[in-house]
């Protein structure tokens, strides 16, 4: 499939019956949707399931895509809804998903290839601290910080995706950053002590 083909064109082809076109959309976005889901849910298995459900729901609702928004925003909205649904189930159980992953050892991250073993260890430790800190955020704060930092959505796009006011997006972002700073300092991140 031609990489110059836009997502919107691929959707048009998929609606016309070209199954390979939607397969190309999956290949383009599956990693980012998975990362988004993992950032919100904090557990590999849940993230994989949420990402799969996202694409399946998108495929089923291809005919409903009007082209008013970007395909990426459309997929993000579906993915976030999937994650929110799963979070609510988890909150009923009074459990946060990231705590599960923490008990199981967490996701193993790939180390930068050109760094020394010491820097690799430091980087690994730092990423683990960040992962725990994000996982310890309340779900509503985790959603906005992940949508902003992972997907670089604008405040307005986040507001549309989560269906909350624009000012709420800003306030939640500020609160999330503030809590993350405190948690990183608590975990001994020296660079955060500016």
């Amino acid at each position, binding site marked *: 499939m031609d990489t110059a083909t836009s997502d919107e064109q691929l959707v048009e082809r998929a609606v016309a019956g070209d*199954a*390979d076109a*939607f*397969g190309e959309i*999956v*290949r383009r976005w*599956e*990693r*980012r949707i*998975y*990362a988004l889901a*993992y*950032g919100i849910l904090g557990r590999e298995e849940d993230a*994989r*399931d949420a*990402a*799969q459900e996202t*694409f*399946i729901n998108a*495929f*089923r609702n291809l005919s409903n895509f009007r082209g008013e928004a970007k395909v990426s925003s459309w997929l993000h909205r579906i993915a976030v809804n999937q994650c929110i649904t799963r979070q609510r*189930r988890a909150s*009923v*159980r009074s459990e946060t998903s990231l705590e599960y992953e923490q008990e199981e050892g967490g*996701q*193993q*991250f*790939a180390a930068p290839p050109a760094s020394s073993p010491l820097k690799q260890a430091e*980087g690994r430790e*730092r*990423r683990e*601290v*960040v*992962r725990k800190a*994000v996982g310890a955020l309340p779900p*509503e*704060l985790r959603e906005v*910080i992940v949508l*902003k*930092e*992972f997907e670089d959505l*604008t*405040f307005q796009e986040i507001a549309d995706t989560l269906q909350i006011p624009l*000012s*709420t997006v*800003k*306030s*939640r*972002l*500020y*609160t999330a*950053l*503030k809590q*993350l*700073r405190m948690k*990183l300092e608590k975990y001994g*991140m020296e*660079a*955060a002590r*500016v």
Partner: protein
Amino acid sequence: MNKITNNSCARGEALVAYLYGEAQSAQASAFERHLENCAACRDELTAFAFVREGVGEWRADLLKGAPSLSLAGALALPSSQLATARPERDWRRAFAALREFFTLSPVWLQAGTVAAALVICALAALAVVRAEVRWDESGIAVNTHSGSMQQRPASVTPIPPAPVERIYTQQEIEQLTAQLSAANQQLEETRTQLQTAQQRVARAERQKDSASVIRNATAKNEPTRKRRAPRHEEAQLKRNLNTDDEELPTLLDLFGETD
């Protein structure tokens, strides 16, 4: 949650907008002027930038390690088939649904369910521990010690008894051997009698032929007169033939009555 607190100058929204580059130019300029005189906002802005850097590193590694969802094949199916292409196994979904139902249930229902499950498990365990299973020729018998022994026919097809090879005693073997020898001997005698009878028949045939030759010769010498053999010749011929009267035809039978 929506209220931004703990900022001494209460410029949280402006700080966030400036941090992410979404502040309008006038607002950005105003905030930069504020930063020159506000150490708390400068400190917070630097700390937030560091937090963002850490989250960005985490995201980058997450993208590197993100697995392929292997959905391309499933999504290539027609939508009617896709409806059945579930990403999770059925048993996992069933278990998740059960777990969700259980967690969403009120406490009294959870307690009741647990109690009922425990009672069922206890009864089952008790039945298993006290059960006595016996399998004999009449079938399978299960005794749970809750009443009398209950018998039910075996559910499996009864195996027919294997053919047992009879074991003969030495005496029986000797008797059978003697019977076999007697039977062989009788068979041999019968065969001998048969051969004897065949020889006699063959001899009688030859004599018949000889008598025919003699009669023809006599007829040539005495063409107008029929001649009867004397009785002593007939007796002599019988002796030569060495045959019994009952078994062989008489000469009269062979030659016919002569007047």
